[in-house]
């Protein structure tokens, strides 16, 4: 049906686009295994020593641990909150939802920058700056709008009959949610988990502001400081960058299908 010319041009488009996107990343990966500190590639002497050097010099063990603790806590919390509030809006209905739902959606349009100033000074007052707990609390609150929106749409898309028959079977509100709806919504929950992991792990702005103490800082902030100090050691910088981005990329490698299909489903639903 498609002409040969068309098929060929399709491949050309795909390959050109992929190379364009990939080139910077691939080049960086090659830099990270080259011994040359100027960043010039030297593929005849590939070594992995840059990774251990970056790990040591960049204080990465410590900051990766910080990122991990913060991210895992935030993901678990955000997911539970999203399931509860999505269930409330999507299935149960909420007193005052005509007011409350738009108010929560508003949060998707509120950028972090707008609320971060009072948050910082308030948190400083109560001793929650330079604290992982403080950062997790902020991530939880900020995750509410998207999580609510996402899980509400998910639950609404489930067939109504399932909930009715659950009610007929005498399942309570709580067990209907956890025994029936959440298992049915597993792909969407997984997507939410992945998105929220990615967003929290990749955060720089909040960590920079709220965790000024180098002892507490996350991997992204440590990496930012590291690249400032090691401008002249490009290969170390590249290695450090790859280490910091690895958890999310690994997750993406593993869950690509779920990840992208989740984005698709969310988009189509709208």
């Amino acid at each position, binding site marked *: 049906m498609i002409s040969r010319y068309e098929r060929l*041009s*399709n491949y050309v*488009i*795909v390959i050109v*686009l*992929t190379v364009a*996107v990939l080139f*910077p990343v691939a*080049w*960086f990966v090659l830099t990270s295994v080259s011994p040359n500190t100027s*960043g010039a590639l030297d593929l005849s002497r590939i070594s992995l020593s840059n990774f251990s050097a970056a790990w040591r010099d960049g204080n990465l063990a410590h900051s990766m641990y910080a990122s991990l603790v913060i991210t895992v806590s935030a993901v678990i919390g955000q997911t539970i909150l999203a399931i*509860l*509030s999505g*269930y*409330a*809006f999507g*299935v*149960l*209905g*909420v*007193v005052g939802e005509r007011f409350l739902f738009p108010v929560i959606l508003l949060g998707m*349009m509120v*950028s972090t*920058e*707008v*609320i971060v*100033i*009072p*948050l*910082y*000074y308030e948190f400083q007052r109560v001793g929650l700056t330079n604290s992982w707990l403080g950062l997790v609390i902020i991530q*939880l*609150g*900020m995750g*509410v709008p998207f*999580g*609510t929106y996402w899980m509400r749409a998910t639950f609404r898309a489930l067939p109504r009959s399932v909930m009715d028959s659950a009610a007929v079977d005498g399942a309570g*509100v709580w067990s209907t949610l956890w025994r029936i709806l959440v298992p049915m919504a597993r792909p969407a929950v997984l997507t939410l988990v992945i998105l929220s992991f990615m967003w929290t*792990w990749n955060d*720089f*702005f909040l960590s*920079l*502001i709220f965790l000024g103490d180098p002892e507490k800082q996350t991997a992204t902030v440590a*990496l*930012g400081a590291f*690249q400032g100090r090691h401008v002249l050691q490009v290969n170390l910088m*590249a290695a450090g*960058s790859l280490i*910091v*981005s690895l958890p*999310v990329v690994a997750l*993406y*490698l593993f869950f*690509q299908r779920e990840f*992208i299909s989740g*984005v*698709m489903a969310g*988009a*189509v639903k*709208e």
Partner: protein
Amino acid sequence: MTVQTSRLSVRARPRTRAVSRQTRKRRWIGLLFLSPALLLYGAIVLVPLIQTVNYSFYKWDGVSEPTWMGLQNYLEFGRDPRMYAAFGHVLVLIVMFGLIPLGLGLISAALLSRAKIRGEGIYRWFLFLPQVLTSVVVAIIWKRIYAPDGPLNTVLRWVGLDSLTRNWLGDFTWALPSLGMIGVWGGFGFTMVLFLAGILAIPDELYEAARLDGSTRWQEFWLITLPSLRGQMAIALTLTITGALRTFDMVYITTQGGPGDATTTPALLLYQLAFVNPDVGKASATGVVLALLCLGIAVGITRMMENKDR
């Protein structure tokens, strides 16, 4: 007859009331389920949002007593060239983070839509990768690429375009477009994957019918593909434009707003004003303007999409 109807309606009424009472009870349970999220959201987003507005009427260095300024912080916007610059740069970033990826994503998705490509999953994985990469890492990668001795200049020298080589991020004219290119690079894989997914959801019959009517691919694009992607376009635009407005990591890592003020963004300015050399009131005013801008754009996009609906 009349008696019967009234009896019927009398019998019907308690049942509806019972249902609505049950519904009402369920809606209170709903509120209970919502309450943890709502409380956190209120404390972390809503209250600070109002506080920011309040802060914006004061002059405060973060330590000593704040003094009431009224609208002074906002009025200074017009006089402060840095503010002008920051918000002006956002316009450029919106085009490069939002509109260009939207266009590129549409074109490539339309070209590829009906084609069967081998290894689809693989190229999709790569095209989407910039979305997943830590923004700090993306910034570091590009900072290197744009460096005076970085790969971009090396390539330019290879192909004999030595005259074009420069310190891209240190150049008053080129620093901002160079940053914008990072947005194009990162954004269009996302829009493309989003649109390809949207196109897959369009029923084949529509295209077959159009083919039978003898329409060209161009007409198919305008009459079928584009209108069907309205929802995805709204999502893509809202996400990428909000992304552009929030640009911070990229600028903080690569240029810190320099050279001069050539790449300051509102978020960077806000950060500096709030935490580096505290002028908290002015920082808050920046935040408020940024918020209004975000809101206006989101509402505007929704309106536009609704209009197209009719």
